[in-house]
């Protein structure tokens, strides 16, 4: 997919915020000294009065956002996933989730594709953490187009939203005129009949690559893009599982508590089928280029292909 346009979803986040800021003057953006990295710098430039740098204090930033939301603002809290979902978990839970305030969390640098910074900054636990908070919408877009759609949908949604963005450029796969986004709706991005690959984030394009490779082996893989981890599009996943009888999940996140767990929750309750969870296998990442890490931890097309073959053997 070398000829495909690639954009990091954190860039999409910043760009979408500018567009949103023009439309809605209640939108404010908060950062914790990472505006250059979360790509909200473009919003800061366009709307300096509505950009609030809280300094390196994520817990306080989340609380400030909660207070702003009680006064009618639509705050977008920006930081790395590690700090937004990890460090400030309890603030998100108690100051945002419990009072169901209209705070949007834009968490960038999620997963191992953070790369060289290493395991301390590679958050593979955020989806699990955020998914446990009642009323929280959890989204993990697959590309630039979906990431922008997430931001727009988050602003329209009344209540807390967690959005997960990546540092590394990833292929644009939703560039078609029919593309529509709705919170809670997944998409079949490739039809198949032998197994279902449910993927999220950067693993969606990788799953499509894996499906192409499987096709050559005579295996017909259906690929579902799940952007909204919560609420999960159970109907779509169950329909596909009923058709194929086998499910693989793929995410740049721990296999504990994220997409894989969410899919297993619904399958085990409604239509149990064998499941293989692809992701970080209960381990920390390490330093390296994003591409090298994605390859090592088998989250690229080749890695997903190999793990699916193992599952089918």
């Amino acid at each position, binding site marked *: 997919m070398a000829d495909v346009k690639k954009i990091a979803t954190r860039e999409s986040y910043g760009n979408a915020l500018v567009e949103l800021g023009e439309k809605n003057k209640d939108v404010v953006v908060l950062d914790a000294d990472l505006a250059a990295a979360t790509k909200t710098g473009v919003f800061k430039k366009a709307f300096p009065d509505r950009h609030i740098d809280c300094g390196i204090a994520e*817990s306080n930033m989340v609380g400030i956002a909660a207070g702003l939301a*009680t*006064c009618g603002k639509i705050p977008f809290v920006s930081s790395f996933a590690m700090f937004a979902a990890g460090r400030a978990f*309890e603030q998100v839970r*108690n100051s945002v989730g419990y009072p169901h305030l209209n705070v949007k969390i834009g968490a960038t640098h999620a997963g191992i594709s953070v790369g060289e910074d290493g395991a301390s900054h590679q958050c593979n636990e955020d989806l699990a953490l955020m998914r446990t908070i009642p009323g929280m919408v959890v989204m993990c877009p697959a590309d630039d187009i979906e990431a922008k759609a997430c931001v727009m949908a988050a602003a329209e949604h009344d209540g807390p939203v967690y959005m997960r963005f990546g540092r590394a450029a990833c292929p644009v796969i939703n560039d078609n005129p029919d593309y529509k986004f709705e919170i809670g709706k997944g998409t079949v991005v490739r039809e198949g009949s032998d197994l279902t690959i449910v993927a999220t984030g950067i693993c969606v394009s990788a799953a499509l690559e894996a499906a192409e490779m499987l096709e050559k082996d005579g295996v017909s893989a259906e690929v579902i893009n799940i952007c909204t981890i919560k609420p999960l599009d159970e109907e779509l996943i169950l329909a596909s599982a009923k058709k194929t009888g086998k499910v693989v999940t793929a995410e740049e996140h721990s296999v504990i508590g994220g997409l894989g767990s969410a899919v297993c929750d619904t399958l085990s309750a409604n239509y149990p089928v064998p499941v293989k969870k692809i992701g970080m296998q209960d381990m920390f990442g390490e330093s390296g280029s994003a591409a090298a890490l994605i390859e090592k931890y088998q989250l690229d097309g080749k890695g997903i292909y190999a793990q699916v073959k193992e599952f089918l053997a």
Partner: protein
Amino acid sequence: MNNLELKKLANQIRKGIVTGVHEAKAGHPGGSLGCADCVTYLYFEEMNIDPKNPKMDSRDRFVLSKGHNAPALYSAMAHRGYFPVEELKTLRKLGSHLQGHPCMQHVPGIDMSSGSLGQGISAAVGMALAGKLDNKDYRVYTLLGDGEIQEGQVWEASMFAGHRKLDNLCVIVDNNGLQIDGSVEDVCSPYPIGKKFEAFNFHVIEIDGHDFDALRKAFSEAKNTKGMPTCIILNTVKGKGVSFMENQASWHGTAPNDEQYAVAMADLEKIDEELAKEEA
């Protein structure tokens, strides 16, 4: 309202606290009784609020950052007319809107849910910031415990408030000197509190938290202080008004039994009688 009226009201609010906690067989009477005078002053003198229009855009905001003192807040709100005083007896019971810690979704008029220490002040800072962004002239008050300020988030919020010169923000620290494990000084001393807030660019006022003249003067000074937020340090007696609860850390989070409840109410009745004499 004159001081005597405020004192009488504060005593009714204390009865509500003790009654609620007794009925619940759980809760935090000590701190609630200690901050009752300040909360009374805020809800009956200081704040621009309307119980009939609890979401009024221009209202002053109050965040009880020391959320475990919910009995004080609920009692003040009930006496102010937000809900019937009788409902204080449902405190902490299944199905009651009076949750163990304040919940804004359950009680109209509560500006922020709180209870996890150190978080309320950040929300109050957010409200003050929103006021500045929108050029509105409401004020924001938040009440913290002296033990609570051991939480690092308090200082993150204070640094931001001082940096942003949020002069519409008034941080109140209830300095009763006690926390669950003993005296704050022994557990992990936050003293000197005033100098810490001064270092974060606050105007600091220290007063006797049971003196309505002092409360009146301090809140007026806070309102007139421009270019920086104000911190009012209230020196209070934990358990104030109930003889056996005064200055006892053990009454931080314990409910009185029936016998103790009778003594507590008799203590408060005595205060009523003294105030009646003062009036006559």
